[in-house]
């Protein structure tokens, strides 16, 4: 019986095609991309060996530092925003709306499935100043505040990016964390209530510690996604004004396809990959350590 479920021919037939595609189109290119970091040139005009030039350039390129700094700032702010608002919403669903939360959950989740490009173009119009004020500036004007040129300066452009991405994704994290909260046994909450824990104390002493594992995985998912941000920023600000909202992904894309420097582009992609894996491992390890202590 175990022999039959271990049939080699069947394993090759079932797993082979997927493994082949995955190896040829993912794994080989990853290694190839590593190799490209020692070359310069591009697909159209050929490659020349460049030794460590790309890495030398990497460490002296102020734009790389700017892009890394922007990427990290973005990832941290969006992750905190997503998780805090998402957790707040999930508490709202579980404790305030209870069984009536279905429709609210569904509506707040909806923006998650919308195409990023469409959402970004919509936010461009919502925050527009010309030819007519967008809704946001009209709203400010209504309260006597002057119109703001949202995409004219780095700070306000960043703010719009943050608002947009949190608007888009908080419903997602709300549902993700909601699933964790529903799993908390009713008896635990009931006995805590009998002991007099209510409101904020119930949340901070009982609910929050019990939902730490699901919060941790939400943080990892969020960091992983936000470090790779590309679509929403390209469509909303295209990295501007100037280069002030350019994350690593976008800088890599511009280096490779606008300037045709594939070798340097691969080097930036490598930095991005190391950043993604490093941060995930770091969060994972530090969380593990906390668990053993507590």
């Amino acid at each position, binding site marked *: *019986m175990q022999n039959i479920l271990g049939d080699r021919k069947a394993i090759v037939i079932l797993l082979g095609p997927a493994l082949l595609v995955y190896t040829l189109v993912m794994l080989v290119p990853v290694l190839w991309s590593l190799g490209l970091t020692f070359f310069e040139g591009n697909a159209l005009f050929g490659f020349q060996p460049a030794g460590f030039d790309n890495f030398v350039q990497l460490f002296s390129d102020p734009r790389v530092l700017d892009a890394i700094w922007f990427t990290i700032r973005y990832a941290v702010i969006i992750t905190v925003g997503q998780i805090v608002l998402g957790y707040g919403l999930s508490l709202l669903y579980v404790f305030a709306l209870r069984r009536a939360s279905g429709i609210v959950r569904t509506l707040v989740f909806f923006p998650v499935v919308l195409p990023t490009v469409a959402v970004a173009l919509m936010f461009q119009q919502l925050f527009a100043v010309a030819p007519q004020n967008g809704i946001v500036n009209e709203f400010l004007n209504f309260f006597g505040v002057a119109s703001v040129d949202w995409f004219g300066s780095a700070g306000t452009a960043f703010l719009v990016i943050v608002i947009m991405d949190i608007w888009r994704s908080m419903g997602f994290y709300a549902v993700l964390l909601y699933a964790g909260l529903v799993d908390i046994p009713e008896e635990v909450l009931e006995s805590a209530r009998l002991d007099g824990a209510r409101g904020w104390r119930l949340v901070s002493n009982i609910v929050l510690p019990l939902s730490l594992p699901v919060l941790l995985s939400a943080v990892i998912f969020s960091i992983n996604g936000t470090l790779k941000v590309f679509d929403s920023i390209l469509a909303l600000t295209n990295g501007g004004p100037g280069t002030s909202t350019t994350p690593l992904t976008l800088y890599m*894309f511009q280096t490779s396809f606008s300037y045709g420097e594939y070798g340097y582009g691969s080097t930036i992609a490598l930095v991005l990959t190391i950043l993604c894996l490093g941060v995930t491992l770091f969060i994972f390890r530090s969380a593990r350590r906390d668990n053993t202590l507590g």
Partner: protein
Amino acid sequence: MTLTTATNTTLTTGIPNPSTTPSSGQLGRRITRFLRKLPLRTVIAVLLIIETYPLVWLLLSSFKTQNEFLTKPSWALPSQLNFANYTDAWVDGNLGTYVRNSLLATLPSLALIIILGVAAGFALEVLVWRGRSQILLLFLVGIMVPAQMILLPLFTVYFQIGLAGTLWPLIITYTAIGLPLAVFMMATYFRAVPREVFEAATLDGASVLRAFWSIGFPMVRNAVFTVALVQFFFIWNDLLIALTFTTNQSLRTIQVGLLSFTGEFGQTAYGPLFAGICINVFGTLILYLFLNQRIMKGLTAGSVKG
């Protein structure tokens, strides 16, 4: 803010509220109940307005004429229900072609991801052999690696073997990028199927392939549909891959095409732009209207992808 108001209003219901106790009679009680629920209701109302009003505004604006965009305030209602913007976007803006390209790239990729992913998930979870957990781990790594890491070699290869002028680069790349998550999710779903089912089938003389096709596949049919939905959204909404590999205008997907909408008409034609965004948004809205529970479940299950 949401958090504190929400929890206060509900979790403190047992504590008598000094400002509301003296009121007497049916009406008074009804008013106090209304007032007690007011903060919660306000929070919910504000939340729903923030999440849905932009979309309503988007739809209303898509009926406005260029003149209305330039002279009337942005919150004004359209003067008439004018579908000219939609035909402009669809025909002159080539949105019809872009939607067709998106479908032509998305559907084959989905089919490939499902066929390859379900089979691989079965082989990795149900079948017994040395090294299967290492292979599963290998697939997991693929979820983490950013797509930027594979774009340049792939572009070089597609260019050299002459695939650059077709939709094949998109189909191949989407399939490979979607596979890790599909394999991972399918392995998880197969884990929930009792092993005895497959053991019994093979005892009855079914070959492994038959056990997979006639028993395994039908048992996870629902999960397959969920995985397909999740992958659909990732592929349909993708910009990075599509932007990289669509070298000429006639191959643009809807996302790339929409991005170029602002330039296509010379001076930005706001009407067709809004209509284009609407077509893009309300396409997914219709899907969401019918399948929202499943989509929510599927996307959160696929959240490892971030």
